[in-house]
């Protein structure tokens, strides 16, 4: 049981898709867990609210885009160790997914995304009849 989940990104931790706004877009970290019934994606996206999170799935392409509203205006950081920007990540999902039943939850800045597999790709135990 293997699923191909691939993505293309450049090596500096930033997303490859270009935006029209002049803002830094970060590539959020993801964990991906697969069971017989579903794929579960866990992503760290601190600062994103549910209304600013856009997830779309089409033809095996999963796109996740989180918009982060600027938290500070015109602040000069005394120490600045991280940048704040939008999140973007996309995956190509090799399995057949039941797109109707995709569900997502966002809690404490962590996105949990459930991708249930279609019935036809679920492993099936084959009964062997003794003749």
């Amino acid at each position, binding site marked *: *049981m293997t*699923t191909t*989940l691939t993505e293309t990104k450049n090596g*500096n*931790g*930033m997303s490859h898709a270009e935006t029209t706004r002049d803002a*830094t877009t970060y590539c959020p*970290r*993801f*964990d*991906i*867990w*697969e*069971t*017989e019934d579903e*794929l579960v994606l*866990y*992503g*760290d*996206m*601190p*600062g*994103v*609210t549910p209304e600013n999170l856009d997830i779309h799935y089409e033809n095996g392409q999963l796109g996740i885009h989180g918009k982060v509203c600027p*938290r*500070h205006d015109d*602040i*000069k*950081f*005394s*120490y*600045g*160790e*991280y*940048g704040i920007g939008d999140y973007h990540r996309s995956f190509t999902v090799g399995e057949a997914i039941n797109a109707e039943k995709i569900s997502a939850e966002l809690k*404490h*800045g*962590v996105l949990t995304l459930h991708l249930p597999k279609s019935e036809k790709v679920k492993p099936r135990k084959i009964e062997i009849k003794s003749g």
Partner: protein
Amino acid sequence: MLATRWEPLTQMNRLRHEMDRLFDRWGDNRPQQYARNTFPPLNLWENDDNLFVEAELPGFALEDLEIMVTGGNQLSINGERKAPELEGGTWHRRERGFGKFNRALELPGYVDSENVSAEFKNGVLTITLPKREEVKPRRIEVKVS
């Protein structure tokens, strides 16, 4: 004669810092003043009355975090993020980190440790540290004689 000890590690570190600086200018322009592996990275800023410290801590809850101010200017943050215990499947990617962290920081000024407050929203922790009266900026009136 010029006696220079050859210190390959120092040289390598210097080279790395130079490279980081170079790429910070054109590429990833996030500010970096500390080593990359300190967790969590912090942003600190101030206004006339308060110091503010912010950290991104996704997956933590406020009750998992311990924030302490000692000696009026030492801030320490401890916490733990537990890995989810899942069974009956396989991991395809594990990019997120789990475990305990402890970060201590010397604040740029003395704060009123009794009135420190913290807010945790969408995985972002913001600590507000009121400055002590004696460190607040004071406007000095210039009299015209």
